[in-house]
């Protein structure tokens, strides 16, 4: 006798109850607050905002909490929420030259106007586990503060630009409407604005690996970090109906300008080329990886051959989205028994036909 | 000066459910050429736009779809009505239009002047919404193609003069080509580009649509 398995609905409800239990963990401990997550796991919150393309610390922290710390799940939650939001328009391009800089380093000049500013970096920390953090026993010192007005800090690329040593920062045509791949179907080849959007949303690990591969010779671009800067910039929105520009507030971003391999021809004198990265929040690794991949993807513009994965636009852009990737990889756990049955049947039939031949071979071998 | 009441009034009473109902009617008609759909909900587009045509406009047109209007519609309160209820940009370039609207008896320009899509992206073509006087007391036409079991019949009254000849040319472009929705007051019939139309009377030149089969 056989009774078919039933009760999918109940199984799902029970699974979700157990998940909620595991998320909450030990009830005798206080639950994490959103403020704690923003305050103490800020870089995780930043990554969720960056790859979800939504700048909202509270919602990103909520997503992180709900996802039990699973970054891609949190990114997914926030993106699914973002989709439902109305879209009012595009902001005025961010003026990173007017950034209130918290960190700014250049690898191309020893000193430069505005100086090198290390800021809150892990660089030069010795990676030794800190037992003081176990129980928050030690008092944390107040940071040193610099007095005076925050001034605009010039970009390193501007220094090179003044001498004509670097390619111009490509201007978009006057009537160019910035693309948005969350609103329009993708099409290859892609204009650079859409490509940069895809990279900014792209998986940090995937871009890191691709950027790394260019350094190891898979599409080498001879990069120098012209500049990395991180800090607050103002977001402005133009309201043509009212004839004014509104400030929507400030957001923290990380920008990386990579100075790459020069190009020249009989007509044009040699110039360095650019790779660009910009990410929500503080994420140098992501901004640097993005600028390496951006430059690698400009291969076609410079008449170079596409020889490495990082230079292959369709490959990189189609696979850099971790929400898409995780969905499709993980869908393999869904039932596929109808298809598998079809394969099973075919393999059985083919094996049945194959058998006599196998037996003959074995027999012959035995005879030898 | 367009009448402002006409601009603001006469839209969907409930945009979410009304547009869903109109879309389903249109989808069923597009999937079954020859089948007549009817827009039963209350809607009052400004003249000379018909009710079904107005319903299709509000259901499908928005900021992302440049709309081309016939000269007479452009001069009517329709642009204001469309801007208020749909927010769609108008275009005078036919090949840029996602949708084109014609009032009854409007002359039909060359279909080839509208967007026909490309061989790679044949979907990027204009959908024309053409008002006729009636769908069933005019010249009997026989339809065949996808969506039709054997043949279907319509008898539109007031079809633009050389429509059949142009339609045959449109079919020869497959997979490129425009799609058409014929409207008559509250009623509509869809003619996707795959639809072959032949006039039933022998005297009419029978539109020999070249087979699209490869």
């Amino acid at each position, binding site marked *: 006798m056989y009774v078919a398995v039933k009760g999918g609905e109940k199984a799902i409800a029970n699974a979700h109850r157990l998940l909620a239990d595991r998320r909450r963990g030990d009830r005798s401990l206080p639950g994490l607050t959103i403020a704690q997550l923003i305050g103490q796991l800020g870089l995780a919150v930043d990554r969720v905002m960056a790859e979800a393309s939504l700048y909202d610390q*509270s919602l990103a922290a909520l997503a992180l909490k709900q996802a039990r710390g699973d970054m891609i799940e949190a990114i997914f939650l926030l993106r*699914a929420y973002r989709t439902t939001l109305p879209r009012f328009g595009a902001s005025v391009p961010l003026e990173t030259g007017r950034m209130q800089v918290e960190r700014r380093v250049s690898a191309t000049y020893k000193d430069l106007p505005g100086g090198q500013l290390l800021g809150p970096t892990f660089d030069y920390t010795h990676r030794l586990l800190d037992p003081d953090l176990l129980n928050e026993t030690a008092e944390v010192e107040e940071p040193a503060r610099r007095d005076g007005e925050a001034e605009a800090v010039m970009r390193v690329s501007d220094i090179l630009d003044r001498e004509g040593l670097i390619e111009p920062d490509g201007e978009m045509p006057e009537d160019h409407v910035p693309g948005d791949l969350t609103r329009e179907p*993708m099409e290859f*080849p892609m204009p650079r604005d859409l490509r940069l959007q895809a990279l900014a949303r792209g998986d940090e690990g995937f871009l890191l690996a691709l950027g790394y591969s260019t350094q190891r010779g898979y599409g080498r671009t001879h990069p120098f970090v012209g500049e990395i800067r991180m800090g607050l910039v103002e977001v402005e929105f133009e309201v043509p109906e009212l004839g004014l520009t509104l400030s929507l507030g400030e957001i923290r971003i990380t920008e990386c300008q990579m100075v790459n391999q020069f190009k020249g021809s009989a007509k044009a004198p040699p110039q360095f080329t650019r790779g660009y990265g910009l990410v929500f929040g503080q994420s140098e690794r992501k901004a640097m990886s993005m600028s390496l991949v951006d430059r690698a993807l400009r291969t076609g513009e410079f008449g170079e051959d596409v020889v490495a994965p990082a230079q292959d636009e369709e490959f990189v852009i189609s696979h850099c989205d971790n929400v898409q990737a995780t969905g499709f990889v993980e869908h393999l756990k869904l039932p596929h028994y109808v*298809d598998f049955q079809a394969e099973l049947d075919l393999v059985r039939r083919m094996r049945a036909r194959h058998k006599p031949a196998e037996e003959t071979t074995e027999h012959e071998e035995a005879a030898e | 000066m367009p009448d402002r009441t006409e601009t603001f009034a006469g839209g969907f009473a409930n945009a979410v459910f009304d547009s869903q109902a109109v879309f389903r009617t249109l989808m069923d008609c597009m999937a*079954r050429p020859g089948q007549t759909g009817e827009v039963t909900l209350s809607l009052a587009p400004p003249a000379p736009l018909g009710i079904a045509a107005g319903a299709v406009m509000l259901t499908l047109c928005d900021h992302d779809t440049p709309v081309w209007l016939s000269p007479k519609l452009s001069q009517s309160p329709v642009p204001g009505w469309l801007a208020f209820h749909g927010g769609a940009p108008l275009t005078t370039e036919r090949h840029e239009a996602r949708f084109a609207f014609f009032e009854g008896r409007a002359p039909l320009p060359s279909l080839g002047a509208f967007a026909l899509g490309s061989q790679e992206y*044949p979907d990027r073509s204009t959908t024309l919404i053409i008002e006729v006087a009636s769908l069933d007391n005019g010249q009997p036409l026989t339809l065949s193609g996808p*969506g039709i079991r054997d043949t279907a019949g319509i008898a539109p009254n007031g079809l633009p003069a050389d429509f059949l000849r142009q339609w045959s040319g449109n079919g020869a472009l497959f997979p490129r080509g425009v799609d058409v929705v014929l409207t008559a007051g509250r009623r509509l019939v869809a003619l*996707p580009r795959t639809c072959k139309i032949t006039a039933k009377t022998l005297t009419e030149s029978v539109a020999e649509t070249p087979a699209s089969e490869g």
Partner: protein
Amino acid sequence: MSAPHTEPVTAPESAGEAELAAYNFAYLDEQTKRMIRRAILKAIAIPGYQVPFASREMPMPYGWGTGGVQVTAAIIGPEDVLKVIDQGADDTTNAVSIRAFFQKVAAVRATTHTADATIIQTRHRIPEHTLKEGQVLVYQVPIPEPLRFLEPRETETRKMHALEEYGLMHVKLYEDIARHGRIATTYAYPVKVHGRYVMDPSPTPKFDNPKMHRSEALQLFGAGREKRIYAVPPHTDVVSLDFEDHPFEVQQFDRPCALCGATHVYLDEVVLDDRGGRMFVCSDTDYCETRQAEGHVGEMLATSEREAAE
């Protein structure tokens, strides 16, 4: 017109201080629905051609039916009756989950009876019960491009479709014959639609391919991650690719369903024990249950159950 749910469905959780937006009927905002609706109309007008659309992030993972869900959300109304199946069954977890989603965001009536449904969303099967005019079958599609595994580049496959250059597909099928003595494609078996476009029928077993041919129902296909929508209108030719000397043939099962005794249906293999015991039952659970209710009996149907039911 009856509109029982004019109130927006509110989001279940609130984000502490933050105000979360209310969701629209059928989840998608109206602009998104219009965009999908336009794509659906073009898809119907060009049978088998994959229309690119700006697929949205849905509250379920890519690869789990987001394309089908978006198509259903764009067409569904308060009058509809929805059936959702996965592997032919209404009770598989992902089917349950998608049905619950629509009951929540569109408060739509649901059914498991194929004949009662106006919209059937499916993954991997076409119901055994012949579909009728007025029904819409919405397929969830993982990889809409039939040429993808022969040529991974979208830029190339788009050209191949444009030029109707399908030689590569025939070469692939023929290589199967050379190597295995038969075409070794058992599911997602490519078809030609209206004599023009080669189309992926989604990973349904090829057993179901003949059901697509001149079906009375409208068939819509949604691929969310790959951002494509395509369609087969009713009464449209859908021909499985084959060769004169190796004609297309579907799977044959050499026994009837063990529960309802049906023949000429697609069967799932159920492993009964660790000693090689197995049985074959209808993959279409509604079809099987309806037949059992009508008194059809397969060899393994629990006799005690039947007696209890009487």
